[in-house]
């Protein structure tokens, strides 16, 4: 019966031959698990598209309603919390998967001739994926979103010559508001998806044209067909990643900060999660003027400090390590409804966020000003956000934030160390945040 139904479209379109041609590709011998990373990226892109469509049905891209619509999704819509959880965690997974895929391509030399254009299309896709993360961050219109976008736009403002125009273009004017939200939403749901789909088609077409590169050392023997032998490996990895994604979405609720408030204090709203205070590193002063760092330092400076953070101070600070241990001991001994000493959490996060100190002590070729590092030890950690001095060129109205004066940060070692640092940077804070959110789900009151 089913075969009869499927025969008709096949007789009219010949789709079976197309599918067979797509699946019967012979792979080089030795093509194995490392070559499953692309499928994971594909799975996550599909997940993001599907959950994004679901979210779009309820999200309203207007400052007066954006926050309420996200709150509605989270609190009132059936399965809405799960929907947003999958989209939220899926976004992070997608960035990681794309980077892992890129590393695989790099390490196995798949970018070499004749696959240079495939590599470039992949790089463009990575940029588009980062664009998704950036534009999606503003949409909840909570404090974190607002201030993160403020910083992001200030980063763009540091672009030589065109910085101011670029910032105005991103904002849709002089102020961050309805026009900003509208264009970022439009980019998130129309422009970037169109770009990504185009690039995916091109990427896959190029991949099919040149074939999979295979292992570094060519192996003897016959190859296997893509389906089902390699698809089976793809499916195992995809299912594992998807299981972790669903588990995270189930167990770790996505937070929603207070509604965006221009007069609010950015330091009070988990802003530290936005790690790239690159504006500082790009040496943007209080008026948005760009100060070019020494050319040899430029790229290293951009990537440095906040991103390459966290792995940090523990090694050089036994007291903080002790606090971390104490924190986890406290967590273990707590029962639902009991109070948890906020200080332990603070100390844990202090430790995990001691980015600057680590960067200074490890990679700096100059003595650093300890007055900045001291802020990380305070109870009200401003993390990487600094109050402008009330005198001098960075002075602004009380309560506002401007990137502080540059410290001429330099990073000494090469790309490998940096890459490792970037990868490791997220771990401590992520663990800390997960613990907090897990405690929240267990009704342990944090005082």
């Amino acid at each position, binding site marked *: 019966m089913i075969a009869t139904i499927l025969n008709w479209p096949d007789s009219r379109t010949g789709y079976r031959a197309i599918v067979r041609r797509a699946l019967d590709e012979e792979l080089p011998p030795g093509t194995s698990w490392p070559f499953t990373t692309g499928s994971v990226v594909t799975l996550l892109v599909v997940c993001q598209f599907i959950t994004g469509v679901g979210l779009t049905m309820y999200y309203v891209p207007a400052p007066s309603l954006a926050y309420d619509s996200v709150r509605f999704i989270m609190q009132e819509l059936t399965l809405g919390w*799960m929907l947003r959880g999958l989209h939220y965690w899926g976004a992070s997974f997608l960035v990681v998967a794309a980077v892992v895929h890129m590393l695989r391509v790099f390490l196995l030399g798949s970018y070499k001739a004749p696959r240079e254009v495939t590599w470039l299309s992949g790089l463009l896709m990575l940029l588009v994926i980062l664009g998704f993360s950036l534009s999606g961050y503003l949409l909840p219109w909570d404090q974190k979103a607002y201030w993160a976008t403020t910083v992001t736009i200030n980063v763009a403002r540091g672009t030589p010559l065109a910085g101011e125009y670029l910032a105005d273009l991103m904002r849709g004017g002089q102020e961050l508001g309805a026009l900003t939200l509208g264009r970022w939403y439009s980019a998130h749901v129309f422009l970037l998806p169109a770009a990504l789909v185009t690039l995916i088609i091109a990427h896959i077409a190029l991949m099919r044209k040149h074939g999979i590169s295979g292992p570094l050392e060519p192996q003897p023997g016959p190859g296997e067909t893509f389906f089902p032998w390699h698809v089976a490996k793809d499916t195992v990895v995809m299912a594992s990643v998807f299981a972790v994604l669903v588990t995270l979405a189930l167990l770790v609720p996505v937070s929603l900060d207070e509604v965006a408030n221009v007069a609010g204090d950015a330091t009070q709203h988990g802003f530290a999660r936005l790690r790239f205070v690159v504006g500082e590193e790009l040496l943007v002063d209080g008026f948005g003027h760009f100060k070019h760092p020494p050319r040899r330092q430029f790229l290293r400076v951009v990537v440095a400090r906040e991103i390459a953070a966290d792995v940090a101070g523990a090694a050089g600070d036994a007291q903080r390590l002790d606090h971390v241990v104490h924190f986890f001991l406290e967590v273990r001994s707590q029962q639902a409804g009991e109070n948890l000493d906020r200080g332990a959490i603070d100390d844990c996060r202090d430790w995990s966020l001691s980015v600057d100190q680590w960067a200074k002590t490890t990679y700096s070729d100059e003595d650093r000003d300890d007055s900045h590092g001291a802020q990380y030890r305070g109870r009200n950690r401003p993390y990487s956000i600094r109050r402008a001095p009330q005198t001098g060129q960075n002075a602004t109205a009380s309560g506002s934030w401007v990137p502080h004066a540059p410290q001429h940060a330099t990073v000494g070692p090469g790309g490998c160390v940096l890459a490792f640092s970037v990868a490791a940077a997220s771990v401590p804070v992520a663990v800390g945040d997960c613990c907090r959110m897990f405690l929240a789900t267990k009704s342990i009151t944090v005082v």
Partner: protein
Amino acid sequence: MDVCSSHHDPAGRRGFLVRVIQTVQASIGATLAFVVGGAVVAPSFTRRAPLWLAAGDLPHLVEDTPVPVTLRFSRLDGATEVVDRRVVYLVKSGDDVRALDSTCTHLGCRTRYNAETRRIECPCHGGLYDAEGNVIGGPPPSPLARIPTRIERGTVMVQV
């Protein structure tokens, strides 16, 4: 090279793998479909709790004449709360009162009462109802919907 003629493995192993792949990928799809589908479909089946609203005083109604009354009530509309309006006809017959929904049963247009002809008319496609809400002309397939009413201390209460 055709998948069916794979020279590495017998058809049995291949067939098993294909079924495993299909099952796992179908599970991933089903999970996504459950979450997204649930969120998309659920509001369609959500029913608002009925409200009893005061629609008018019984002595002020005219015998056997539909009196249009606009009811206003707030309700949740997604993330926002809106004030909704609904027009009903109150028809007094002795000590009894009937309430008729003003929505045409043809294609949902708002009807109006014509006092001269003593008919309820639909402006969209010419549907005609008498004062009792019965169809007397045009395309409407059924009478105007009756709305539950009750009288409390001389006030007509209508359920919306």
